């Protein structure tokens, strides 16, 4: 009786365990780090600077977030964007002497209205084309 048990145990130990084992139902990890990482097939194994986010945490992002200017008034650097600096610090709005601005450089609502072919012809003919 004992001898049989010993033999059975020995046989169990001798049984080969395959490397491939069933791991159970596949599950998606609860937390996945989405920070940009180099692509596995990238020849350089690195990412350009442009991929790196300056905000690694939410609080850092919040510090730099803007809504009609920075939310945190401690961010005053020029890099903070609109409202980061007082308007007076930006210098005069008027163009220096010898420099000209075109109104088409302003936001689109200030652009000249496009001319139609009929208008151009009317101007070129001194208005005669409108009555032809």
């Amino acid at each position, binding site marked *: 009786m004992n001898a049989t048990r010993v033999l059975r145990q020995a046989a169990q130990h001798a049984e*080969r365990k*395959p*490397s*491939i084992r069933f791991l159970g139902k596949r599950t*998606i*990890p609860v937390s*996945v780090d*989405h920070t*940009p*990482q*180099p*692509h*596995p*097939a*990238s*020849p*350089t194994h690195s*990412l*350009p600077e*442009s*991929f790196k986010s300056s905000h690694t945490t939410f609080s850092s992002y919040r510090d730099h977030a803007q809504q009609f200017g920075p939310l945190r008034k401690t961010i005053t650097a020029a890099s903070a*964007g*609109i409202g980061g600096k007082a308007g007076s610090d*930006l*210098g005069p*709005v008027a*163009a*220096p002497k*010898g*420099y*000209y*601005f*075109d109104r088409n*450089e*302003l*936001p*689109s*609502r200030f*652009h000249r209205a496009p001319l139609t072919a009929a208008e151009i012809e009317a101007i070129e003919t001194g208005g005669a084309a409108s009555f032809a």
Partner: protein
Amino acid sequence: MLSQRLIARTVARPAFVPSSLPRIVSSTSRWSRTYASAAEEKDLVIVGGGVAGYVAAIKAGQEGMKVTCIEKRGTLGGTCLNVGCIPSKSLLNNSHLYHQILHDSKHRGIEVGDVKLNLKQLMKAKEQSVSGLTKGVEFLFKKNGVEYIKGAGAFQDEHTIKVQLNDGGETSVRGKNILIATGSEATPFPGLEIDEQRVITSTGAIALEQVPKKLVVIGGGIIGLEMASVWSRLGSQVTVVEFLDQIGGPGMDLEIAKSAQKILKKQGINFKTGTKVLSGDKSGELVKLEVDSAKGGKAETLEADVVLVAIGRRPYTGGLGLENIGLELDERGRVIIDSEYRTKIPHIRCVGDVTFGPMLAHKAEEEAVAVVEYIKKGYGHVNYGCIPSVMYTFPEVAWVGQSEQDLKKAGIKYRVGTFPFSANSRAKTNLDTDGMVKMIADPETDRLLGVHIIGPNAGEMIAEGTLALEYGASSEDIARTCHAHPTLAEAFKEAAMATYAKAIHF
């Protein structure tokens, strides 16, 4: 004077950079009435309907996303289905049958009468296969609710793709996510203009109207050797010129590459390895190529009716308007992405030939599924160490994982086991005994590191090696798995036995 003025304007401009001001409404929308339904935003807009693009579109449709796929070719499937893998396999299969009937039937006990080649019908059979498959993909689009736009897409801004429609006119599509899947094109040979008649790429090589007397193939990679096989079987005198000392490209195991070269040479293909093409001239009746030893030596002139340029492929981003969104390409023209296929603009992703990794249709398919999963679930999977490669010559060559030269270079110890098809019963009965299975495993853990096969049906058999490698199997795991008798797959099992112990039949 005018130029001075323009410079002064440019200098002064930063004070009025419109992009730094909050954008409220455009001048047109301020004064015109628009409808909410006019610009419905899609969950995913895919530029390119090749293997990467169409698979991503179908997967996105299955995941319940609103998806649009833009393709300018007029048919789906990209290079693979239209002018690559699929038509070339049709020609390879049928030219092999023709060659076998001509040269390999008598000793099998089959005597046939007058055998004639009908090249027109051969091409028609190829076109039937292609059109059947491309229409099949269109059906799958309908089945999975994918909107298909035939036209050339270009970035207008980070969320909008402007499409020049193939039927005339234009439209634009907005997407929360955008996927670039524009694929690749054949790399031209400097100084030799491609006309797809006498100087051809793989696209021209699957559509020749007559069998060229002399064909020179520049490049002894997979595409070059497959096309060399087709036209050699149909009667061309073929010479393959390869810069490297081995054929098959850098991924093929050296021992297998040597074996493949020997077998293909026996079939009548001439090889000039370690040879560079200096220049080409197609002004005369024949195309002339000046070639020289890659290490320097005596130059010689090769003449051919047709020259096939098969020196590789390059990413295709022409007309995509990447400059409008400031996306960067690397030094080889590939779109730079991170591990989740995101470009530096995170909602714009990229997969397939146009970005990193081997330019293989099945790699693109894997990426297409993974990228949709990343968008939808935040988690995807592609194992770049486990992507099989297949060369569909006769015999086929297939491999997955690392080659002996890779491991030597990396200083990794390994153990090799081989089994020849000449000792396999099914190969013997088929009278196709050229080739072998070669397995490489870790000497300590016995974990599989690579599988290399040259032989009949290698392209099918490599699937077993890929599965084993993906699962992290040992060679003993494969050897102890029962394989049916008599099958070619027994050679695979026996090679595994030879790796961890000894093969029975060799």
